[in-house]
């Protein structure tokens, strides 16, 4: 799925903040993690800040903090902040032929699946799934030497 660069940066940053509840995270730290410009990221974060899901504190020890509900906020909510409501988007004028109508139906099918996916993925789900993958990776790493020893014996 193609998203605007600002939307993608916002998703990374907001999920990163949500994974560190109660922590003031400096913008430059997030920028460094994801290899992006601090200035650009600060501009991007103004939108979720106005929406009340990211708070910021100035000065030493300051930074950004996730202030939303990670169990309720979905990817759709973030995409909507930056790209508007996908469900209210009007399809461009198309010639009223059977072929154009069928093309429109297929595109609507793709949109419906995309919207359902975005609406069903909460930030907490992303965080939990990322943790699960990390745990599995570590467990697999721990198993490797055991396997190697078994093969040698």
């Amino acid at each position, binding site marked *: 799925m193609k998203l605007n660069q600002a939307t993608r940066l916002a998703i990374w940053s907001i999920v990163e903040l949500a994974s560190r509840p109660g922590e003031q995270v400096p913008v430059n730290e997030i920028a460094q993690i994801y290899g992006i410009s601090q200035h650009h990221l600060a501009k991007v974060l103004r939108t979720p800040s106005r929406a009340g899901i990211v708070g910021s504190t100035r000065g030493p020890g300051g930074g950004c903090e996730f202030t939303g509900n990670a169990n309720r906020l*979905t990817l759709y909510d973030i995409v909507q902040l930056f790209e508007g409501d996908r469900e209210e988007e009007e399809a461009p004028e198309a010639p009223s032929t059977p072929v154009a109508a069928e093309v429109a139906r297929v595109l609507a099918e793709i949109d*419906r*699946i995309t919207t*359902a*996916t975005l*609406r*069903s*993925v*909460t930030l*907490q*789900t992303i965080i*939990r*799934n990322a943790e*699960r993958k990390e745990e599995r990776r570590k467990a697999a790493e721990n198993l490797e030497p055991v396997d190697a020893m078994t093969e040698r014996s």
Partner: protein
Amino acid sequence: MTSGAQPSQANITIDDVCLTDIPQIIEIDSEITKIAKPELWYSYYAPAGRSQPRWFLVAHEGERVVGYILGEVRAWEFGSPPCGWIFAIGVSPDQRIGGIGSRLLGAMIERFRPTGVKTIRTMLHIDEHVLMSFFRSQGMAAGPFIQLEASIDL
């Protein structure tokens, strides 16, 4: 969602279904779907001539049923190797957000595990965002199969 005192996890037990649970299950299902389907639920309780293993579990808070789940192992349907299908799950609307759905799903996975299946699968309406969120929160995601349909009316 209606308000209500959420049960403590410690008071919840996950058990195999009993005949006396069925009326409460019908009630929960009809509260969720707005359609009462007694014949369906009694048929799930007493399946006739089934070759595939199936489990029907309930979450109890004392005598009260607060949730249910149905699952079975299906092999080679649509070319799929054996996998555990979750084909119904429900939690009483006034008892949600308490982890009962997760407990039910976890118990079902433990029933599937000894059969050797490595995958669980379910199907739900595309507009059921809350239920889809629940399954995703349990680590489920879109799989390699896609459902297609067509009207057969001319």
